């Protein structure tokens, strides 16, 4: 089918890029320990970018039999568009490192196999604490076949498969999520820690307003990165002047122990892949090194604007216009164990989850959040979970006030590889 599209588009456009994806999704859900809903289906998407007289047109369709209309729509938009002086070209062919995220056993994993995995999870949770109830189960498996062809000779194709689950577990008046995602079949490995977190949420106590050290769990830290940091390292936001980091490359923007990179190529990381959605090879990009801002994440368009190479961070979202997105954001580890970090706190908080992350100001990093899962620490010991606490401040001020960084890196959320971090002072409102 894609060949037909290419031959139809060839004579109509000066340049073109054809993106085709065929995905098969398996979604299983339930409101008790027994799943009761299953959905399976395929979505074929065709997304086009064309250039006519130096003007760009974009169109997409989820109805690929209708590809001619899609091509004509893209041409129509291009003709009516302004000339974009910053647009130079689409990506050029390059060398690709082969990264295979296509586990055969996961490909064959179906609803009956999930029922078995679900039983294992239910058993393990129930064995640890028989009073825990299953409020919600959501499982997704996504198989995707991508092919990208453009007028510069790029023709690349790959297949990926990944899966994730979220179990909402409840004990008395508290509930938290058991989460995992991977490119292979999931296991019960996160059950123990999650049950422990849930069991430790009882007898919450109030504390007093203070500016105190705060240790962020990977889960809480990923909220900040997701809702403000990724915005500010997006080259488009930098070029448009929306990013706080504009004109800051080479300057110190964080504590000297802060190292952050985007790694799209390391084997085993969930979003690693050979090439991005424009056909550019994936790579590792330093963003902050020893507290100094090194650079940003680029797609071809923003890279061309600065005469540099794309970092391979283009993705196509729901509306099929390429955007810049992190692959795997990796925060460099420190040298402290969790126990050593806690031990160094005189009076402070350990925050595992917050509420309202999406309401923080993405460009400035100002936030005001509810601590939904946090513990009071005194004299190096976790004392009790806290009640009715908010934290407030600015994330970039916090990045400059880092006391210590943990030595263990954990995968949280989709593509965040993070340590525990102890910040020296945060506003705590009670």
């Amino acid at each position, binding site marked *: 089918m894609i060949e037909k599209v290419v031959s139809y588009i060839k004579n109509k456009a000066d340049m073109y890029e054809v993106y085709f994806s065929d995905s098969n999704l398996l979604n299983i859900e339930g409101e008790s320990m027994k799943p009761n809903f299953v959905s399976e289906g395929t979505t074929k998407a065709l997304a086009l970018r064309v250039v006519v007289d130096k003007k760009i047109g974009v169109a997409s369709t989820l*109805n690929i039999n*209708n590809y001619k209309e899609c091509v004509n729509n893209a041409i129509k938009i291009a003709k009516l568009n302004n000339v974009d002086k910053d647009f130079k070209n689409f990506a050029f062919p390059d060398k690709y490192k082969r990264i295979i995220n296509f586990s055969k056993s996961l490909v064959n994993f179906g609803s009956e196999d999930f029922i078995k995995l679900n039983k294992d999870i239910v058993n393990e949770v129930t064995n640890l604490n028989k009073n825990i109830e299953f409020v919600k189960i959501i499982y997704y498996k996504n198989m995707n076949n991508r092919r990208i062809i453009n007028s510069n000779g790029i023709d690349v194709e790959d297949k990926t498969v990944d899966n994730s689950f979220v179990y909402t577990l409840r004990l008395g008046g508290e509930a938290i999520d058991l989460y995992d995602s991977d490119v292979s079949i999931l296991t019960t490995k996160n059950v123990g820690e999650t049950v422990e977190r849930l069991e430790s949420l009882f007898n919450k106590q109030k504390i007093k307003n203070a500016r105190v050290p705060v240790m962020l769990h990977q889960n809480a830290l990923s909220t900040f990165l997701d809702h403000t940091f990724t915005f500010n390292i997006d080259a488009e936001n930098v070029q448009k002047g929306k990013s706080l980091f504009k004109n800051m490359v080479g300057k110190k923007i964080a504590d000297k122990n802060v190292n952050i990179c985007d790694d799209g190529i390391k084997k085993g990381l969930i979003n690693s892949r050979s090439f991005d959605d424009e056909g550019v090879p994936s790579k590792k990009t330093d963003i902050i090194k020893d507290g100094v801002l090194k650079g940003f994440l680029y797609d071809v368009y923003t890279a061309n604007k600065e005469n540099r190479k794309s970092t391979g961070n283009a993705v196509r979202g729901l509306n099929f216009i390429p955007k810049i997105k992190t692959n795997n954001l990796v925060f460099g580890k420190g040298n402290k164990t969790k126990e050593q970090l806690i031990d160094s706190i005189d009076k402070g908080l350990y925050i595992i989850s917050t509420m309202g992350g999406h309401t923080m100001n993405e460009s400035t990093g100002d936030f005001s959040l509810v601590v939904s899962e946090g513990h009071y620490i005194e004299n190096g010991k976790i004392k009790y979970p806290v009640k009715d606490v908010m934290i407030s401040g600015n994330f970039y001020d916090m990045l400059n006030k880092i006391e210590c960084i943990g030595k263990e890196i954990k995968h949280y959320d989709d593509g965040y590889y993070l340590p525990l971090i102890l910040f020296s002072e945060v506003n705590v409102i009670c």
Partner: protein
Amino acid sequence: MESYIKYAQEKGTDYIELHSVNNKQTIIDVQNRSIKDASFNSAKGFSVRVLYNGALGTSYSDRDDYKKLIDIAIKNARALSKENPGIKFNEYKAVKKRFKIKCKVNPSDVDFEDKKKKLLGYKQIPGIKVLDLIYGDNNRIYRFVNSEGSNLEFKDVTLGLVVYAYSQKGKVNESFLDTYRIHGGYENIDNADVTVRNTMRNAVETLDAKYVKGGDFPVLIDQKLAGVFAHEAVGHACEADFVLKNVSALKKELFGKKIASNNLTIADNKQKLKWGYTPFDNEGFVGGNTILIKNGMLNGYLHTKETAAVLGMEPTGNGRAMTLSNKPIPRMTNTIIENGDSNFNEMARSIKRGYYLKGSRGGETNVLNGQFLFNAQECFLIENGEVKQRMKPTSLSGNILDILPKISLIGNDSREDTGFCGKDGQYVTVSENAPHIKIDLAKVGGQV
């Protein structure tokens, strides 16, 4: 369609639905008076949902090969049914009805050139560094048929403009976000002008503002924030999936009991032609106005067929799914706080020291323990009954059951706000319609 229904019934299904969607969309992203992206997008989709031995199976594709879809849905549902998940639907009367959004000018008939001219016409005011406008229009036809004989169609037309304004003064940056959205035609587009203007003005004015002092204060909240409050603090807790799992703070035992001040009435009205308008839900149920809190008493929940059957109540038509592939779950549509009788000045006068909070980037609720947070995009100090200087944006937090009785005054100036609500990874259109309200004491985030 009848032959497919018969085919599914012969294969042993207890109930079956067939769905189809046809969608055409234009998106134009304009930054600083030049087009950044423009695209035409179209989609066609077909799906079936079957109830088979107590399990629900859905399958979908871009082709109307319903037999194949039925086979896949049954195969998967059969795997789940071995564990006896026990879903039951009650039987309902067939409904045959067509719904259509009336518009004078369908946006799909408007030349791209005209849309471009309109969008490029918005000029930045001094202090605004970036003005980002994302325009979208959508023509969508959704058809629903089920084994009870229902046959429904909704021809929808929507128009929207999302406005981001980024301001800068020296080293201080601020950003502000607002939106204009409507079910209707292109003749409404000029109504977005005021949204664009206000968003830029707010972004500039916030530059000079100081941080708020955090703590417990009386607050006056505007229509938008009051709407978010109704949505976050009450609406979610009234979604019946939470109630039947006994994880809602507004639990069954509170039904019919007084949980808020007498002057508070909150409803979900899906038939009102606001942004959350849902003439029938994704289970083919029409429904109407569901009163959640009536004069302070807990009065209603939002149901799917599944939750209604378990709780022995009537469905309300709130079973909404983001796409044909998703599970319909109880969702809000148009959340409404009925007008009270206080005017703005009288409400402000009742506050000695507190805050006037306006606008919102949204909020979040833990329905189980009742904890919620909602963000305010604008914040003003109130001293001795007077609204004074602007402060930096902040957030409010509290607990549903603690805060409801603390709503002491309700304004008479209801206004609509539009948005999307996320639950279990599914985003659906919602609106909130509320007047100003005064809360006697709430926790405000800020510096210590």
